[in-house]
């Protein structure tokens, strides 16, 4: 189904849609408040953008540097060309240790690779431990937002899910009590897991270490208790030096949730004694995107989701309206790289207002890339037939002045009918303004005729 059709369904409940819109806008406002408290905010964004651009121009070298430093620190480094290989590597490690239960903190990469399904098929129990992610996992749904996975759900719905799966009393709808129930449930999982998997926010070439940021402490609870820790990262998560973390950590939490910092910014350099630590470096289409000049900068993304929270289309259509698991503006420029045909309508789910680019902490030109994808997708014939037809007809008319004049006359004449029939999506919830009686050219010709001849024509 197209984004527009899904969004239409989402909007069937106007009160709920308004709530979704306002909830996300509140996060945007919190972000603004924090950003305004940092006098060097714009300098930070510029520095982050330039560091990322530099890194992408030396990506292979930095990955090699990272690999050798990490290996020297006793971390085992693996390389995966695609999602399938990533899943095979992770399963291989788990199988070798006879792992039956894996606790996992938030990792969009493993969503991208469909790791959970793969491991479950091999009989491994996977527990997502981020509260929001656990809620949607129990519903067997993907996250609707990359930072707040269950942002589309109301308290009472979470209560239903917990009643069914965690045995909480029916009708529980207090956020504090629901969170407490999840804490108790997940604590048991942390204490009995055989291995932990985390994502990676930043990997530092200079040190071979990596940083994982959470507010809940779930990544740490998993990683520091389990005998095996696997960290999975896209190859674009590399930054050159440890001091660059200062730039990115100042931007990340403020942009994501309007906090000055995440609660836990954990720096892993070595496995703890007796523990095995693995890092899986995943390409899965990233080197292809790196080679596409127009879209290369999308790889600078630090997954803060500020562009989601500010996007008037995302806020009013919800994450499940998008065909890719990363929704919103950034998802709409990442998804066509994966599959143009399947996600071809995502770049059209935008007003091109540019608010996404304005809040992006690494200054990705998101709305420009959206426009470029639209052109590319249309040129390759992935646009819907009615749009192609409409564009052809428009082109035909605009090239022929006589036809254009006729079309104008017809439009002026039949406008009331267009408003009445609501054939065009635009007119479904809006009335086109009343048409003037004559065209501009008719008016000009008439005015010229009525004008008295000039007394002193200019030389």
């Amino acid at each position, binding site marked *: 189904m197209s984004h527009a059709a899904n969004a239409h369904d989402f909007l069937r409940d106007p009160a709920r849609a308004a709530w979704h819109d306002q909830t996300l806008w509140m996060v945007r406002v919190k972000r603004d408040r924090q950003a305004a408290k*940092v006098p*060097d905010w714009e*300098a*930070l964004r*510029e*520095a982050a953008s*330039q560091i990322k*651009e*530099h890194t*992408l*121009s030396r*990506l*292979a070298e930095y990955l*090699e540097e990272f690999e050798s430093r990490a290996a020297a620190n006793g971390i085992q480094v693996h*390389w*995966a*060309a695609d999602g399938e*290989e990533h899943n095979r590597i992770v399963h291989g490690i788990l199988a070798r240790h006879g792992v039956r239960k894996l606790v996992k903190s938030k990792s969009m990469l493993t969503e991208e690779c469909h790791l959970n399904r793969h491991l479950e098929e091999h009989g491994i129990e996977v527990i997502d431990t981020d*509260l*929001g992610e656990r*809620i949607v996992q129990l519903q067997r749904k993907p996250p609707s937002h990359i930072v707040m996975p*269950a942002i589309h*759900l*109301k*308290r009472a719905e*979470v209560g239903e899910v917990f009643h069914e799966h965690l045995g909480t009393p029916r009708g529980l709808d207090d*956020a*504090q009590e*629901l969170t*407490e129930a999840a*804490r108790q449930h*997940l604590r048991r999982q*942390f204490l009995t897991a055989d291995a932990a998997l985390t994502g990676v926010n930043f990997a530092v070439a*200079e040190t071979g*270490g990596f940083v994982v940021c959470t*507010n*809940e*402490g779930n990544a*740490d*609870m998993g990683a*520091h*208790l389990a005998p095996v820790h696997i960290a999975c990262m896209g190859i674009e998560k590399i930054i050159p030096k*440890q*001091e660059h*973390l*200062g730039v990115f950590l*100042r931007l990340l939490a403020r942009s994501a949730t309007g906090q*000055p*910092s995440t*609660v*836990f910014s*954990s*720096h892993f*350099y*070595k*496995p*703890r004694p007796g523990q095995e630590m693995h890092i899986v470096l995943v390409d899965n289409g990233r*080197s*292809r995107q790196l*080679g596409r000049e127009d879209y290369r900068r999308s790889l600078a993304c630090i997954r803060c989701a500020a562009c989601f929270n500010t996007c008037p289309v995302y806020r009013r259509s919800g994450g499940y309206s998008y065909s890719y698991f990363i929704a919103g503006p950034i998802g709409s420029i990442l998804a066509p790289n994966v599959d143009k045909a399947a996600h071809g309508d995502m770049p059209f789910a935008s007003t091109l207002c540019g608010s996404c680019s304005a809040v992006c902490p690494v200054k990705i030109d998101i709305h420009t890339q959206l426009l470029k994808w639209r052109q590319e997708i249309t040129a390759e014939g992935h646009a819907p037939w009615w749009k192609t037809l409409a564009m052809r007809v428009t082109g035909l008319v605009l090239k022929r002045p006589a036809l254009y004049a006729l079309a104008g006359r017809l439009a002026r004449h039949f406008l009331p009918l267009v408003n009445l029939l609501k054939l065009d999506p635009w007119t479904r919830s809006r009335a086109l303004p009343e048409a003037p009686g004559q065209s501009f050219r008719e008016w000009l010709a008439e005015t010229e005729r009525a004008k008295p001849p000039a007394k002193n024509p200019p030389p």
Partner: protein
Amino acid sequence: MSRATILDAIRRAQPALKPLPEPAALGVGGRMENSISQFVATLDFIGARVIRGRSLEEAALWLRENLPAEARLASTVPGLPGNVDLGAVIDPHLLEGLHTAVFPARFGVCENGAVWVEESDLGHRVLPMIAEQLFMVVRAADLVADMHEAYRRVGQAGLGFGLFLAGPSKTADIEQCLVIGAHGARGATVFIWDEVV
């Protein structure tokens, strides 16, 4: 083994070298306030409790007065009370049920209320997450204004694990309602001491 394939693909795709910027030259850093009052205000904002004192004895007194006598207490700060011998705990799972973890922070960051904690000061990496309550000790002289100054103090060599810890664990995953105490500690106290009063 896809290592060579991936690196080849990247080398073919990566653009001509773009310069690595010097963040300071772009105007980054040195613009935030470095003061105890700023640090305290930020800690207050992120939901941490602040206690100020002249000496560690005051911290010990506070702990004795405010913690239940039967509470399991693990301390890595010499002179502060603890009844769990972290050195004798081999398996970190056994720390479950810990009431309070007491440990030192190397320094505090005024702009975000985080403190830098190193593995060697914890005994176990999981200590600041598995305990129900945290009691962190930092000297008033050890404050930095922003994260750039912070990273100038973070060591690299020999470090296995370290973290910036900013207040108690929290989540707003249910309807954006802030709940303190997600998977980590339900409360965090920062004891700032030896300031010149």
